[in-house]
């Protein structure tokens, strides 16, 4: 039985070998000859085009299978945060209800799709995957901080609402009504301080208006050295945020100092109203913040964040709980670990459980230790 089959197999093997060598040879000739035209103006054959599109669509469909959307995508605050980044970073190429595609972008091949229409052809999970990872060979970049899925969801929350959005609704979400012109390339080095402050406030809020979303923390009253360092770290890609890296990267060094001073001089707000407090969680959080947890090797937060006179440890009291939790989770996961200060916080955050993170955040959000901090100053 085998005696008959063996030459048969050998023939197939030889045939395959010859075929493979032939293909390799032809390919080599083609590549080295320079016959292929890489011009953006030279369009693909229809069949190549169809194949590329199919590959792209299948790839996105398959790879987005493991994506699970968070529960609160319908949250307008999230969409608002996404809209503000969209206006800044995406609209020039993809157009928006109030602006057309830039002619430069239109010259790309493939041309960036007009999102006001194209969004509908993708599922939520797929949109998330594309925004996060970008698309090879298309000019679509990946999210500058790929680990920050939480930020990507903000953008997706906005994109979900984009199809058929009126100019008015868009202006409301993107904040162009509030501060006219703030949503252009506002952080350009030439911009004056007031415009820059307005641009920051567009997301982070001020004494009159709350931040658009807890992920954009209120800046008023934060310590100046910390704010300066944060902006520099964003600009240098040492702290991860797709939104802030884009913004901080545009700022001139003097502007960073100015902005930090302006916000540091303001009075810190109180964001959590007494009625919204979870006292049980706060009490547990207080124990961690004030005394630490010995068995888990967690030091007391207050030592650095309240009683220390150093301006490098951020003031936590009054920051939104969601923001504190997100940052602790980023520290814990080792995403935020690149700066010398993050190197201190990351190993400590790694010892916190989910529940401890929740409790600590609840405690600081209610800002009960203002007095102690003032005394230390």
């Amino acid at each position, binding site marked *: 039985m085998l005696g008959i089959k063996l030459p048969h197999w050998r023939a197939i093997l030889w045939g395959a070998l010859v075929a493979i060598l032939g293909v390799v040879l032809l390919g080599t000739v083609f590549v080295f000859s320079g016959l292929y035209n890489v011009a953006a103006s030279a369009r693909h054959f229809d069949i190549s085009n169809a194949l590329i599109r199919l590959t792209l669509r299948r790839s996105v469909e398959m790879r987005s299978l493991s994506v699970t959307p968070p529960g609160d995508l319908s949250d307008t605050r999230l969409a608002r945060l996404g809209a503000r980044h969209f206006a800044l970073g995406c609209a020039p190429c993809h157009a928006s209800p109030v602006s057309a595609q830039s002619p430069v972008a239109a010259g790309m091949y493939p041309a960036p799709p007009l999102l006001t229409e194209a969004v509908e052809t993708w599922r939520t999970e797929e949109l998330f995957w594309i925004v996060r990872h970008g698309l090879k060979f298309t000019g679509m970049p990946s999210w500058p901080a790929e680990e920050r899925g939480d930020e990507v969801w903000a953008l997706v929350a906005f994109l979900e609402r984009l199809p058929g959005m009126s100019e008015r609704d868009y202006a409301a979400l993107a904040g162009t009504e509030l501060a006219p012109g703030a949503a252009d390339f506002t952080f350009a080095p030439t911009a004056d301080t007031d415009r820059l402050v307005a641009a920051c406030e567009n997301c982070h809020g001020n004494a009159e208006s709350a931040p658009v979303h807890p992920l954009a923390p209120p800046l008023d009253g934060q310590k100046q050295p910390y704010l300066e360092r944060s902006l520099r770290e964003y600009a240098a890609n040492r702290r991860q945020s797709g939104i802030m890296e884009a913004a901080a990267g545009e700022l001139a060094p003097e502007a960073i100092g100015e902005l930090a001073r302006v916000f540091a001089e303001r009075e810190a707000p109180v964001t959590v109203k007494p009625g919204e407090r979870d006292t049980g969680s706060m009490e547990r959080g207080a124990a961690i913040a004030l005394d*630490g947890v*010995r*068995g888990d*090797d*967690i*030091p*007391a*937060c*207050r*030592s*650095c964040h309240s*009683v*220390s*006179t*150093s301006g*490098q*440890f951020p003031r936590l009291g009054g920051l939104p709980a969601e923001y504190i939790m997100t940052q602790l989770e980023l520290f814990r996961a080792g995403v935020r670990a690149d700066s*010398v*200060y993050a*190197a*201190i*916080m*990351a*190993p*400590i955050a790694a010892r916190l459980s989910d529940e401890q993170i929740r409790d600590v955040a609840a405690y600081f959000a209610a800002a009960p230790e203002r007095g102690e901090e003032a005394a230390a100053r």
Partner: protein
Amino acid sequence: MRPGTMQSVAMRPWRLVGGGLPAACCLRWSCAALFSSLLAAGCSGPQSALSPSGVEALHIDPLFWTATWTGVLVTLMIVVLVAVALYGPPPWRAWLGRDWIVIGGGIVLPILVLTGLFVYALLVMQAGALRSAQAGEDTITVTVTGKRWWWEVTYATPQGEPIVSANEIRLPVGRPVRLLLESDNVIHSFWAPQIAGKLDMIPGRTNEVVLEATEPGVSRGQCAEYCGGPHALMSFFVIAMPEEDYAAWLAREAEPGAEPDTPQAAHGQEVFFENGCGACHRIGGTPAQGVIGPDLTHVGSRHSLAAATLPNDAEAFARWITDNQHIKPDNLMPPFRQLSAPDLAALAAYLDGLE
């Protein structure tokens, strides 16, 4: 072997077991003879079980040597028998090649030899048990807790206020000290070879061992149970001191941390608080009351830093603060690389001055 050990050992009145055997003394000298060719350093060394200076270690020593020499004899006997079996004259070989040699050499001889060694070992064990049981009221109690990866040492005092130290055990010579061994994380094992055998520190249990140093001196110990990460860098020193010195040391240890005595040290103290060091470390008499890392109240007077990993000087403090993750990878202290050179020097000077 340290010269003079033999005589001092023979004079020990607590040597219930085997101590008076002249054979044991000969064995000890033979040790030097046997290994000196191989071992320039001899049997001594700060962490050597072969130069005992504690009661338990001294009890184990002659048992060890008895077993060793029995083993050497057995091995020699086997070698000789094999040589005879291979190359001996035929009558000798005929004599060897029978069943009885298997019964005699394989059953009777081992049972006799093993019974002897076994009973000797039981007597040593019983002596150890009695020593633990008889450690009376004047016994000092010290709790040693295995941390990742250092040792917290708590001395009970008559005043009731415990004294907390780290990474070294002080023993008054000639007085039994009861060690309570605990762990709140993984399993460690406490081993000070010159003083006594090892005993594990197991979460959920308290193990007890009574140590008694027989002569003053500094020896070294190390964690003997693999505890992950830098297990290799979890050591300590045992400092046996005359009773009066010990009392003086204990009294000094009970005092609060020294005030900085130079402007640089004073600045160092500021740096200490500004950077939140007190969250993990305690310095008696200051607001720093952290209990996560070692107590630093008298850190400057200790024998080593970082669980016997670094010498105790200002330079080592500075290295440790900024570079501890390279010196001792995965240890639980974060690196503080943000400090400027003057700040760092000041902090190191302050800590070094905490004597």
